């Protein structure tokens, strides 16, 4: 019996106003050690977590956004962003960090980790998961 489950981390909250974005990322990084089939979903205000150019110096708190760019190194490469959430907030893919992973099966070719998906497709993706964690 396979011990590999499809783990989905559901992110719906903006960064910094609450701790959930950062503390959920910590769980994602730990999950990499368990060889599970990991997907990240960003919807609602969760899409703000990936906005590029975050600068927290004025607040005196840690800017954790560079951590997202390490996800590819941890073999976490399925990052789904809900298109409707982006559109509602006047955002496009260009506003977000460019996250990539290297495919060892294709001579370490760099590929995009982020997939912008419409709600119907995202519903199917969520339906196919085994374990869903919300923060």
């Amino acid at each position: 019996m396979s011990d590999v489950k499809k783990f989905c981390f559901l992110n719906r909250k903006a960064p910094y106003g609450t701790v959930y974005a950062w503390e959920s990322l910590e769980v994602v990084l730990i999950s990499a050690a368990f060889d599970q089939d990991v997907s990240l979903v960003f919807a609602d205000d969760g899409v703000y977590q990936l906005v590029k150019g975050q600068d927290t110096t004025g607040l005196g708190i840690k800017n954790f956004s560079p951590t997202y760019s390490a996800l590819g190194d941890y073999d976490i490469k399925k990052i789904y962003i809900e298109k409707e959430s982006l559109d509602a907030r006047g955002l496009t893919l260009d506003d977000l960090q460019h996250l990539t992973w290297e495919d060892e099966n294709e001579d370490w070719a760099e590929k995009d980790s982020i997939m912008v998906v419409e709600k119907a497709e995202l519903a199917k993706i969520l339906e196919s998961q085994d374990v869903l964690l919300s923060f």
Partner: protein
Amino acid sequence: MKFGIQVNEGPYTHESSISALNFVRAALDAGHEIFRVFFYHDGVNNGTRYTTPPQDDKNIVAEWSKLAKEHNLDLVVCVAAAQRRGIVDEGEQQRNGKDGNNIADGFRISGLGQLIEAGIQSDRLVVFGD
């Protein structure tokens, strides 16, 4: 069925901990197994033995401790979240040079891997939060 439970909030500000407690009781009454209850974010505050709620109010921490003892439950408080919020056991007290510890009976402090393991080993993972 084996259940993994994740509790994201502390004992009083949100209903989460009570909902989780009631769910766990109902699952045990129905003959199911609780693989682990993992306390994350402010949920770690369920693990301090220093709460003194009014007599006519529910003592949520004591109820978790009691349930853990009666059913041999594994109540895990996340170490990273606990360090941030000041939930300390003897090991953490010594490691981090604190002058005391406050972990409640039946709780133990451990890493985030325990949550992932709960997701892998349980048949169902239920998250209670805000």
